């Protein structure tokens, strides 16, 4: 009697339910469980991204009927010919690149001191407040931010009241986009500074390096991959933007607006598709160039 009550009171292993059996099946078939786990996101990626890109590429080789405006599925290189030879496309590409580079340089120049201050100078409270302050614009609607800048930079706008209005145009576009994409640069740069141990900065000083020398010889090389990571955002986002420039850019065209007008008012999908390959190519070149810095591991 006492013996049986002894066995009864022992804690039993958990019952083997169907769910547990399934779990242990996947537990002992790691590769299979990985496949099942990744199947859905991979299918999504292939469908939405790769196939869409391929369709775009195919479309770029078609043309439109000049009378009906319908897409004609004949293979032709004329769209690419137009994009690569017409002066308009060259001018717009150069202008877009100029703006994207300017925006990136401005954002990096702001992000470096700000990120340094946030991670190495500010106390925990101020740091938290600054992180929120720099993230806050991300929670506001894009159009609101663009129109807000329009009221600031436009003639008769806020800046005009102190006689410093740049007017609508390239300068206004650069200012607006620098503002809109700034959080995407500040955040990786800030985390980059966070990852530099204070002892490295102290060690540089200990070995005789003054502030500026420490900055150029130790801090900049270590934070550089993060700077590049941030620049990928500001550069690629500016390259593809077509809304802000319509609001603050005056009559200036960018690659984005060119594609947009070819799709919309122009009704020329094949030409728009061919144009879209300019920013895609530029971004691919940029990514290849920065891959060596290790920046892609810092995203």
């Amino acid at each position, binding site marked *: 009697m006492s013996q049986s009550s002894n066995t009864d009171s022992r804690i039993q292993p958990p019952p083997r339910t169907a769910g547990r059996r399934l779990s242990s099946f996947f537990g002992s078939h790691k590769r299979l469980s990985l496949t099942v786990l990744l199947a859905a996101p991979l299918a999504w990626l292939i469908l939405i991204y790769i196939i869409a890109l391929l369709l775009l590429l195919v479309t770029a080789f078609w043309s439109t009927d000049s009378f009906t405006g319908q897409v004609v599925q004949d293979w032709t290189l004329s769209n690419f010919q137009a994009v690569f030879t017409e002066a308009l496309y060259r001018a717009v590409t150069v202008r877009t690149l100029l703006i994207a580079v300017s925006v990136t340089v401005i954002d990096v120049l702001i992000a470096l001191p700000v990120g340094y201050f946030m991670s190495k100078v500010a106390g925990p409270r101020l740091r938290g407040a600054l992180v929120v302050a720099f993230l806050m614009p991300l929670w506001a609607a894009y159009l609101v931010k663009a129109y807000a800048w329009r009221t600031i930079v436009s003639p008769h706008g806020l800046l005009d009241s102190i006689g410093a209005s740049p007017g609508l145009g390239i300068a206004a576009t650069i200012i607006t986009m620098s503002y809109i994409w700034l959080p995407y640069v500040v955040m990786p740069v800030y985390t980059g500074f966070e990852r530099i*141990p204070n*002892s*490295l900065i*102290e*060690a*540089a*000083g*200990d*070995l*005789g*390096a*003054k502030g500026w*020398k420490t900055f150029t*010889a*130790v801090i900049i*090389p*270590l934070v550089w991959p993060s700077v590049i990571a941030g620049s990928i955002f500001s550069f690629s986002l500016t390259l593809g933007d077509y809304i802000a420039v319509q609001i603050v850019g005056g009559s200036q065209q960018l690659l984005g607006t060119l594609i947009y007008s070819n799709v919309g008012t122009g009704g020329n999908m094949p030409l728009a598709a061919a144009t879209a390959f300019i920013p895609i190519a530029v971004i691919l070149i940029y990514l290849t160039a920065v891959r060596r810095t290790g920046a892609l591991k810092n995203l």
Partner: protein
Amino acid sequence: MTETAATAISLRGVERRFGDVAAVDGVDLDITEGEFFSMLGPSGSGKTTVLRLIAGFDEPTAGTIELSGKPVQRLASYDRDVNTVFQDYALFPHLNVIENVEFGLRIRKVSKSRRRQLAREALDRMRLGAFERRRPSELSGGQRQRVALARAIVVDPKVLLLDEPLGALDKKLREQMQVELKDLQRNLGITFVFVTHDQEEALTLSDRIAVFSDGKIQQVDTPENLYRAPATEFVASFVGTSNLFDEEHSQRLLGLNGMYTIRPENLRVSSAGDEHAGRLTGTVRNRMFIGANHRTIIDVDDIEVSVLEPADSPSRSLGEQVSLDFNESDVRRLRADEQSAAHVALD
């Protein structure tokens, strides 16, 4: 260390407060040129803060710090003739081994060929000649440690500050590095200021030791004196093992006024009925074999006393009545601990 040796570092009334907390609370200290000086204490005792104040990574809230007679407490670290070996080594990850070692020479605008030569000499001294092209991430902990040492000594500082440099190494490597550090200090002849929480390490390496507790220095002395004649209760219990007798037990058991300590190896045990019966009697509670010795724990009155007996001493059974004897000269009187002002106020 002779009487005429000059003072390398001198601290007077140094204090570092963080808000209401005094991490360092009125420290006076003189470190002689060429000595291997250790700052020993548990974590939070203020020893690392003192090291950082000497290095110039932090400023004292009060007091003066002099290096070779010149006040430096307001100078930045790059204007002080001391170098530091960091606890985490702080090697620059984007530079290889020889570039790390050359860093300080590059700042000092030493010519390229001279710089290479000096860096190679320093690396050879650390037996790292074969590793000069490696990145710090490709080295073991012990190798990084030696790169950090090479980088600090290559600029020929007057004082080398070492912040728990052996803390991250395993026991065997640590013991090997202790020997190397001692040799290095002897060969270079420069002042070493060594921070550690490991009392054995401090005793092994140092010419003199300052024992820190609660932001204050409890005692500064040679390892022998520190062990043989601890000044305060804290030092007695932190450095080696001690049997402490508070005022009540000193009065009752030893017939002495004040607080006293006896080291376990200075107590002799004999069977209770023995004609050489000692001054104390007690009951054996535990006995552990620890290699060269037995550690016997004996209940005397209401306190436990630890005794170190030779390995060949007669076996003792638990519960056995024994008597304990000792030489008068091995009973040391202790002062009350140095306590920080904040602590006293709390009491």
